[in-house]
């Protein structure tokens, strides 16, 4: 029993005896690390928010190390990726998405320049050795991720050089050889990776042999087989498929000559080709695509699948783009094409619930052309794959790319549902993780199904207006066949871009919760806050007002239904 003090004075800080935590009636704050939209959108599985956080702290190498946990090829993807991360970026609605690809590229280049070590240790000598077919981005990523899991990797590549499509079909204006070679060789030189060049599956080595020699085999052969193309059976005599034309250009610098060209397709190959043709002298280059140009009328899922800046540059260069259209008929003069009849179409939901492209009668018009170049994709070359190819592709049964029970995986373009370098890299990571777990006798990795942090979950008050940094870029006149068009963003701008990161869904260590809690119920402690934040909720005193959650800029603090008793800071 307390006894009354003279004059009823009280001792300091004795209010701590009064646990206001039991005032929480309905909700309590919790740290919820939702996915940043960039992360959720990244096919390679990069957590851009995480590596920007390191950069915000001024640690470029740490940022790069964080980045290459998912993607070993940032100097490459920073140049060629259509960066869906930027499209998803919550900052877009505020003052422009972060220039993620520029910073990624800068980090990749910095790593090359400074010789930063990949954060992987050499695998044990007797570590299981995974067999990988194809030294394109998927294969290289898979090999790299095997190392991360303590496995060895042996790559079998048909070509004399590693790189796959990166080397074969991307013009130097987008991906110069120097960073390509440097980054690939840095990864491939990592101890534990063996690269067998000029080793073609089905010719130099059989799948059976591989499966015998390796506890798991990852197939990343890419798509090498052209798809037959015609319009109602009409095929021009000089028809050349776009990817082959591009490869020829990349290999020999050769391009056909034509005054007026129509390119049919909606990907980067089509776009690269349009621009090369224009630059090589074609007067009129028209891209016909069934997809739509980005804009209010276009559903994001129906948008043309090209690097946004490439589209922008193409328009600058005078490429005409007819979107939501298809070639309805070839107008032939003998075996040569003289024009194409095009027709508007749209992707619309059908009665079966799925989307279909519907052409609209009465929208037909004719464009006079000298050449039509289809860029409609390729198929897997079935050689050596002994019946695994199904309707042109290797079709896996799960997200890890697993083809059957025997630890055989399909990665990258060969899956038919990919289409970007980033996706190929992501496939490599997923397959390697599944293989590693399997070899350790464990179940497949758990799917990260954390929700994504939407724009509405942020408190944008706490971000000042900061315009997006723009990397230098060659003018249309300066553009050649071999000079990279987009330049280096540079350290200063890269760091400035890092400052712009909203840190969606993750603790920014901004101290807002700590500053605004009227009840001192937020404890700042890096030691005990094991969820990566700097704070803990002292639920003995938290009254559940929700101020911290409302004022959390990043949405990292959310109010959850009240739990009984003390709960961890991170829930």
């Amino acid at each position: 029993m307390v006894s009354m003090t003279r004059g009823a004075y009280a001792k300091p800080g004795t209010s701590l005896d009064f646990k206001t935590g039991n005032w929480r009636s309905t909700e309590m704050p919790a740290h919820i690390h939702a996915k940043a939209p960039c992360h959720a959108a990244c096919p390679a599985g990069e957590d851009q928010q995480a590596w920007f956080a390191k950069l915000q702290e001024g640690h470029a190498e740490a940022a790069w190390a964080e980045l290459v946990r998912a993607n070993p090829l940032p100097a490459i993807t920073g140049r060629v990726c259509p960066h869906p991360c930027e499209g998803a970026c919550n900052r877009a609605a505020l003052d422009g998405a972060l220039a993620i690809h520029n910073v990624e590229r800068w980090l990749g280049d910095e790593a090359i320049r400074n010789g930063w070590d990949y954060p992987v240790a050499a695998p044990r000598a007797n570590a299981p050795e995974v067999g990988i077919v194809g030294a394109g981005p998927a294969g290289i990523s898979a090999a790299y991720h095997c190392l991360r899991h303590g496995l060895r990797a042996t790559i079998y590549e048909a070509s004399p050089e590693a790189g796959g499509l990166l080397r074969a079909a991307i013009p130097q204006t987008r991906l110069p050889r120097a960073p390509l070679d440097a980054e690939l060789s840095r990864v491939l030189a990592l101890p534990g990776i063996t690269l067998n060049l000029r080793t073609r599956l089905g010719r130099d080595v059989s799948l059976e042999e591989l499966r015998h020699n390796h506890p798991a085999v990852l197939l990343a052969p890419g798509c090498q087989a052209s798809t037959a193309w015609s319009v109602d059976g009409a095929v021009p005599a000089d028809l050349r498929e776009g990817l082959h034309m591009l490869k020829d250009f990349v290999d020999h610098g050769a391009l056909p000559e034509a005054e007026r060209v129509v390119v049919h397709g909606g990907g980067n190959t089509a776009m690269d080709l349009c621009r090369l043709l224009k630059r090589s002298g074609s007067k009129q280059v028209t891209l016909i695509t069934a997809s739509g140009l980005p804009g209010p009328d276009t559903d994001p899922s129906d948008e043309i699948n090209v690097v946004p800046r490439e589209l922008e540059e193409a328009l600058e260069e005078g490429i005409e783009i007819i979107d939501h259209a298809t070639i309805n008929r070839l107008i032939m003069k003998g075996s040569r094409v003289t024009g194409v009849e095009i027709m508007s179409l749209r992707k619309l939901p059908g009665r079966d619930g799925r989307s279909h492209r519907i052409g609209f009668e009465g929208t037909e018009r004719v464009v006079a052309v000298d050449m039509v170049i289809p860029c409609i994709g390729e198929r897997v070359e079935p050689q050596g794959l002994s019946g695994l190819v199904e309707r042109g592709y290797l079709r896996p049964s799960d997200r890890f790319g697993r083809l059957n029970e025997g630890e055989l995986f399909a990665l990258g373009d060969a899956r038919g549902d990919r289409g970007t370098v980033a996706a190929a890299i992501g496939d490599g990571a997923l397959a390697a993780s599944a293989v590693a777990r399997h070899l350790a006798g464990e179940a497949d990795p758990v799917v990260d199904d954390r929700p994504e942090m939407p724009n509405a979950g942020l408190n944008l008050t706490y971000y000042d207006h900061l315009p997006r940094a723009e990397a230098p870029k060659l003018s249309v006149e300066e553009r050649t066949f071999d000079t990279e068009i987009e330049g280096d963003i540079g350290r200063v701008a890269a760091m400035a871009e890092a400052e712009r990161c909203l840190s969606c869904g993750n603790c920014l260590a901004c101290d807002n919760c700590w500053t605004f809690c009227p009840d001192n119920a937020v404890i700042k402690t890096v030691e005990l806050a094991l969820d990566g934040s700097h704070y803990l909720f002292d639920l003995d005193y938290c009254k559940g007002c929700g101020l911290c959650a409302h004022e959390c800029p990043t949405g990292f603090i959310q109010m959850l239904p009240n739990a009984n008793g003390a709960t961890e800071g991170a829930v």
Partner: protein
Amino acid sequence: MSAESERAERLTELRQKFGRKPLAPGEETIPHSPREAQPKFRGLDSGHRACQGCGEALAARLVMESAGPDVMIANATGCLEVFTTPWPQSAWRVPWVHSLFENAAAVASGMEAAMKAQGKNTKVLAFGGDGGTYDIGFQALSGMLERYHNVLYVCYDNEAYMNTGIQRSSSTPHSATTTTSPAGKERMGKRHLKKDLLSIIAAHHIPYAASASVAFPADLQRKVRYAMGIDGPTFLVIHSPCPLGWKHASALTIQVARRAVECGLFPLVEIERGALTNVMPIRDVRPVTDYLSIQGRFSHLMDTEDTRAEEERAHLQALADYNIQVFSLQGDGEDPVDTGGSAAVGRSGHAARRA
């Protein structure tokens, strides 16, 4: 008990307190409880009985952090006093005395005189709500300022008598409802204007008088530190939303306070020797309805059918515009060095704090 096992036990206790699994001895060492090891001075500790989301508790906490331990406080009767010191408990960690509703400034004067007589430098603070400052304690405050006591007087302005259940004060804004200025068929809430206390205070020609808001803690704490450094009477009025009295969700305290500043109804200004020396610029001026519409005390003004409501809204907008004009609250554009008006945070805290 060995030091080792003592530490292990302590660690276990802390882990349990924060809901984590106990670690093995020696696995991790923590010098103090994390609560004790906070890198700020906790003059006002947890366990106080303020309402959820109390703006006043927050403001007082922020003031105490900046004022530091070598202070003593005279606290007027009011919410802050009641919720911090229900005997036998006290949330204060500095010498603190509550006497009456209307005499905080006078009690502080006496404490300051005592410090002077004893040759000590302990700074005396006086705390009061708007009732104890604008109204009943106004005379004592004026006397304290006139006699030039070295006291920092902080008014936690929540714009009504909240302790007794939301009665109007001379700080209640025009047309806000309180239990003694209800909106009804004949009346649209409070008929009179919010007293321009700061101008009256400034007319005492004191070294420093300023307004601050809980929504801008870095600015608030800078002002406290500045006032603490002055040998003479200083005055700070802090706009401190009351979720109960203003009728807004407890999570919105900061947002409401911020909007009051952003619309111009509560200008953040600094006055030295009667002259305006600094204002916090409003980066993007909001219409007053952004502020009014999120508070129940102005809900009668949101009736779009009622022409009287429209008139009152226009009146409040005019008052805000007047402030913006008189205090030149719209800054002269963006200056990369100037963090005024910015709430921006970054990885190492508030932008203004980092600057």
